[in-house]
């Protein structure tokens, strides 16, 4: 079971009578870039919300490296090692870039620092703050955001905000990174850059990545395997090239000939 970083078994959720997602079985190996695609309203983001604890699944279970995680709160799921970015960027807008990343570093055991340690300014507080800042700068440097570190997050251009969101997610030291439409609103050049960034993150941080994306060029160039959702159920899954040739998938995207 723990061959897989993420394994979902018959995962599903219904809101009242509406079955938003059902029978989702994902098996994601370590170091894999896995795509989750489907037409609008297929339930992709719902799956993400279940995996991060925003929604509690009504059926099925999911396991991170063999550890059952459903029923846990968002905070504890993040502590166990699932980090995410959002479809509509959610940064801490009124904080500087470096502080955004430092919030991500918050829970790491090496930066543990009690409330009263900080209030009374004991030596440990200064040590931890210094280390956190250094680590945050390292992360920003990797994403080319070091020069913007003292700007407010809301003043960054769009592409950099996306990068900052990924940097913040990585700061929480996850085992699995969930990217929700990372290329939304980007031009082809920015998308190409993003592909490089995602590959780089995978190699550098030894990361497993699950991403939702509409941009087929990005999906076909980066994802090793895919799951296609339609109306909350799995339509197809497997190797990227094969799945994209599947007539069912093409019909779901382009419609029937009638």
């Amino acid at each position, binding site marked *: 079971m723990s061959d897989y970083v993420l394994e979902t078994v018959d995962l599903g959720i219904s809101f009242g009578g509406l079955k938003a997602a059902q029978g989702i079985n994902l098996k994601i190996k370590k170091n894999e870039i896995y795509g989750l695609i489907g037409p609008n309203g297929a339930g992709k983001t719902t799956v993400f919300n279940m995996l991060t604890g925003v929604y509690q699944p009504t059926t099925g279970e999911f396991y991170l490296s063999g550890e059952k995680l459903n029923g846990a709160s968002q905070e504890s799921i993040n502590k166990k090692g699932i980090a995410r970015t959002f479809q509509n960027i959610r*940064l801490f807008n009124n*904080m500087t870039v470096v*502080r955004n990343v430092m919030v991500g570093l918050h*829970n790491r055991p090496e930066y543990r620092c009690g409330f009263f340690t900080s*209030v009374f300014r004991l030596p440990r507080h200064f040590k*931890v703050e210094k280390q*956190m800042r250094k680590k945050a700068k390292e992360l920003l440097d990797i994403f080319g955001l070091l020069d913007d570190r003292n700007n407010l997050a809301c003043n960054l251009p769009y592409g950099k905000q996306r990068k900052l969101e990924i940097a913040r997610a990585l700061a929480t030291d996850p085992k699995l990174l969930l990217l929700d439409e990372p290329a939304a609103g980007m031009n082809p050049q920015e998308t190409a850059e993003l592909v490089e960034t995602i590959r780089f993150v995978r190699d550098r941080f030894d990361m497993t990545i699950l991403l939702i994306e509409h941009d087929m060029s990005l999906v076909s160039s980066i994802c090793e395997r895919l799951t296609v959702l339609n109306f909350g159920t799995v339509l197809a899954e497997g190797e990227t090239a094969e799945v994209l040739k599947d007539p069912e998938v093409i019909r779901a995207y382009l419609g029937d000939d009638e």
Partner: protein
Amino acid sequence: MKNIGLALKKIKWKHYVNYVIVLAALIVLLIAGASGGLKASTNELVLKIAISIVLAVSLSIVVGFLGELSLGHAGFMCVGAYIGGKVAVVISEKLGGGIVTFLISLIVGGLCAAVCGFVIGLPALRLRGDYLAIVTLAFGEIVKVIFQQSKAFGANLGFDTLRYDKSFRQNFYIIALILVLVTLAVTQNMIRSKHGRAITAIRDNEIAARASGVDVTKYKLIAFVVSAFFAGIAGVMFACTFSTVQAPKFGYNYSIEILVMVVLGGMGNITGTILSASLITFLNVKLSTVLTGDLAVVKDLVYALILVLIVIYTNAPAFKTFREKHNLKAFTLRIFKPKKDPSRIRDDEAKWSNIPTKINMDELLTVDLKVQESVQSPDKGGKNK
């Protein structure tokens, strides 16, 4: 020598502005006190301002940094004033009316208010915005009514607080300002740490904060508890300053007044909060001493007018250029104008009048204008034809 200079440069002076303001006030008062003693009215004014600052800074934790609207801050103060004041009366029989009694009552009052803060913090985890404001508003009123109805605290008339020893009362302003410093230190140290970052992250985006592993429950409770603790301390200071504690004082209006101090000072700006708390309290006290008799009716009107004018001045677009010319930064720049090193003047800064040219300006300016007229006249004549 160089090392000291470097070390001084490294210190972030911005972080210590607030302490400097309060310490300067304390020193001025100490000198005034030593050279002839403070007038009773000045003493009372200083105490009122100190209480306001503690209240406003503690409220700014919840409103400015956590981003939740709390309208029941006077309720926490009420708890501190009643319980701290009563504890002081009870224990003074054994410990006398000195600083020991005061400190014990201070801690008991603060802790009781902190417990109330915890209780109010619990619904705050589920409610947001207006709904939380309603809950805190109700809390403030309920606390007030409970104390007003309880016989142990003198029901409607309130109770007489402990009359502290004269030496303690006369020097109470020193202790009050030290308490202001403690409040500032705890608040700022909390905000400028990873815990404060977590609190401001919740304010900026709660969903993202949760997804980044911030324990929202814990930090909301911490913010409410710390805020309530210092409101309780302000309450005990209040009970120590005035001879009676009566519930109607801690009504809805007082909560709003504290909120006005925070909003006027700028959300999440502690220096601004200190200044606006001092200003508003000063204004209130002065207005009620100046406008006596029949004029007392217009006190609220004048107070409101001044607030409206301040808001218009700080926000209206019409005053924008005026503000930019006459703000604190421009003022300090005018006083400490950096000396210009001629070698460092950039091209676009150089004054054109200083540049030697071959053109004789005087000659240019005294050109005979009649010549031009004569050139123009045939043209005009031509048009007339």
